[in-house]
């Protein structure tokens, strides 16, 4: 199945893109998608313990399943305010 990945701030800089389309296997979770991206962009690895995520613009945990067509976002530590 095919998903959209949204990347922000330094993750976007590392990947060189704000949005990616990626194919993922059945029964994938957000964590699966993340590990696939770490493989593709080794510099993502330093965010292993500080990343958070969202699916379809709602907060989600890394063990949440993803579905075809989902928008999966990875959020480096935030600095609003």
């Amino acid at each position, binding site marked *: 199945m095919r998903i959209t990945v949204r990347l922000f701030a330094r993750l976007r800089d590392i990947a060189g893109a704000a949005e990616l389309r990626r194919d993922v296997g059945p029964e994938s979770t957000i964590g699966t998608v993340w590990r696939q991206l770490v493989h593709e962009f080794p510099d993502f690895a330093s965010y292993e313990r*500080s990343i958070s995520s969202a699916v379809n613009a709602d907060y989600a945990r890394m063990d949440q399943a993803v579905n075809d067509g989902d928008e999966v976002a990875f*959020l480096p530590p935030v600095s609003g305010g």
Partner: protein
Amino acid sequence: MSVPLLAIGSAPLALEPLIAAVSGPTEAAGPAPGSYGAVAAFLGLVRNHNLGRAVHYLEYEAYEPLALRAFEHIAAETAERWPGVRLALHHRVGRIVVGQASVAIAAASAHRADAFSACRYAIERVKQIAPIWKREFFEGGDVWIEGATADPGDQQARAAAERVACA
């Protein structure tokens, strides 16, 4: 002229519209006009220095739909903790120069203690969970600022925000 209570966008921020929004006449379901005795407000401004660096400007980016959800989440937490408080929260994105505001918050309440606490709580929670990032452009370079891991379910973070809010 009426503004939404919760908003994110690239226009310059002002506090007066937020104050009017929280303290003025409310929808049918809300409290009667004149039931608020206090408004506490907050403006976050871009400083000319940070960590010893001379700052030129900041660029804020946000995951806007999720940021609005985060603001709704913060407003709901505030309403739960301080019933009767009405909160407005606007965050700006894009390039913001020194002296301009990146965030504006207003909290109206019958009494001042709740207004102050809710306002302070809201800015703490924005910094903890809103999917917003700032890139600092300083004398000699630029850097993404990375603060808190965004987790709205983290009860320790929430308790810390309540503590700081003097609740």
